[in-house]
């Protein structure tokens, strides 16, 4: 018999620290599959965020940096300028990228920095205990919005894919989800495309990935994928927001 599904070679075979059902594991795997398929493990250089996914540097078998909170795109910029033939990516959560790291992400995109950003949006600060994130939905209960997010006090969720796609420096911007196998396949294609665009030196690329956080949403993993489908996708529409010509 032929193996039709197995661990990607560039994905280290160690147990992951994520909570049961957390889809970071799926997104990590898609990045690792892409690294394998594009045969670039020797050139890939990743930048880990501060947040649950900080330990991605242990899981993916390429050179890695751990960046301070929100600064991954600046670190990636420094790396890419020194190693122009490196395939440089950041992996950031919504608190990291859409709150404390807004200046870094916006200007990396504005410069057309030739890097790929994997942006994991699970609508909550997870590692620190389920606080409201910039991407928390209206009415969503978190530990710091116990009665649900209200616009008077907390304003509105940030739509990063839409925002970054307005910048001339951005090249490929998409939003995908990993709440079911069909969408996981689409997410994979999009991540791969983003890396390919970088490898063709076409500028800044970002894939926003909607992800579940059962622990901090207070739902089971099964309930969480349903919640994502019913609540997140209507506010954060999936699709390609910007595609460079000839890709």
């Amino acid at each position: 018999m032929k193996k039709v599904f197995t661990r990607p070679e560039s994905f280290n075979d160690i147990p992951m620290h994520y909570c049961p059902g957390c889809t970071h594991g799926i997104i990590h795997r898609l990045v690792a599959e892409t690294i394998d398929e594009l045969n670039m493990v020797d050139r890939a250089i990743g930048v880990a965020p501060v947040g649950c996914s900080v330990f991605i540097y242990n899981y993916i078998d390429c050179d890695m940096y751990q960046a301070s909170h929100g600064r991954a795109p600046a670190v990636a910029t420094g790396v890419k300028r020194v190693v122009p033939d490196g395939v440089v990516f950041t992996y950031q959560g919504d608190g990291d990228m859409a709150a404390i790291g807004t200046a870094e992400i916006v200007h990396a995109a504005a410069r057309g920095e030739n890097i790929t950003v994997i942006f994991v949006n699970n609508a909550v600060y997870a590692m620190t205990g389920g606080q409201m994130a910039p991407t928390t939905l209206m009415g969503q209960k978190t530990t710091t919005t116990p009665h649900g997010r209200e616009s008077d006090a907390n304003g509105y969720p940030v739509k990063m894919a839409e925002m970054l796609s307005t910048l001339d420096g951005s090249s490929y911007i998409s939003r995908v989800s990993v709440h079911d196998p069909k969408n996981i396949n689409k997410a994979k294609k999009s991540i791969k495309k983003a890396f390919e665009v970088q490898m063709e030196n076409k500028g800044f690329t970002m894939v926003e990935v909607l992800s579940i956080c059962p622990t901090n949403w207070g739902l089971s993993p099964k309930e969480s994928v349903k919640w994502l489908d019913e609540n997140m996708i209507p506010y954060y529409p999936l699709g390609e927001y910007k595609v460079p010509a000839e890709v």
Partner: protein
Amino acid sequence: MRKKLSKVLMKGNEAIGEGAVRAGCRYFFGYPITPQSELPHYLAKRLPEENGVYLQSESETSAINMVYGAAGAGSRVMTSSSGPGISLMQEGISYIAGAELPCVIVNMMRGGPGLGNIAPAQSDYLQAVKGGGHGDYFVVCIAPASVQEIIDFMYDAFDIADKYFTPVMVLADGILGQMMEPVEFKENQEMELPEKPWAANGKRGRESKNIINSLYIVPEDLEEHNFKLKDKYSIIEEKEQRWEEYYTEDAELVLTAFGTSARVCKAVVDKARQEGLAVGLIRPIMVWPFPQKAFDKVIHSAKQFLTVEMNTGQMVEDVKLAVAGRRPVYFTGRPGGMLPIANDIFEEVKKLMSGGAE
């Protein structure tokens, strides 16, 4: 390649740029701030000539994190700023120290706190020599007092950074940045420097991946890392103390000053010696590690110390620690962008030497 060994008239800020390029620096990331602007202006032109990269970042926070990335990839890289911008960089400097990356950070000090002003000051001494950011670390800190020293010390700054895998700060002030002096470019005495097998620039056939990191989640591991850093700092403290002695052999009163203040103090010593007063000067060249040895050396003849700074009293704390209660230590200084005046200091010297200290 520019002509060697011929004197050129250069501004301090530009000299830093040229010195850095000659020391092999090919990457600069920075954000505009007065009074160091001539340095990025110079490098924006100069680095592309050497196939290097000059990049203007969106903030000092970003600049220092770009430095983190570039240093992690194994390059010679620097940034520069002044007080408020250096404060923003402290987070990144802490990460750089934690990850043991080499880089050079220039601080052309100005008046503070807050927005303060853009006039020259030595207001960031404590921030520079006591770590500066969060966590248990030190930054090697070199303080030039002339444009020639700026040039010469850029080699040293990069070499020390690469020798110990640590951030090095060049601590100067607006006067040194703006001042023009004739300088000579010497051949660098090449230091034997370690390789950078830890550089994360893609595995490229390497057996295992490299990770640039300052996270040690297990307390035992972080303790071990902290002790390892401490051992490194102890070696630096032992080997890298640097200072200039000026008429200290028989000095009864020893002035202590660095950078621009030290230039003023030299005039004070000259004047005092003309009048037959046994006054000398210790000028710390390295302000971290602080030149403890210089004080041990003069303590036999020194009866008292007077520290002169362009602030309200920062280095004087280290002078007191170095003197360790063996002699009285006094302070005089002008903050806010005002310069200590030689005549005022001389009056203070005369008062102290006639036993008239308050």
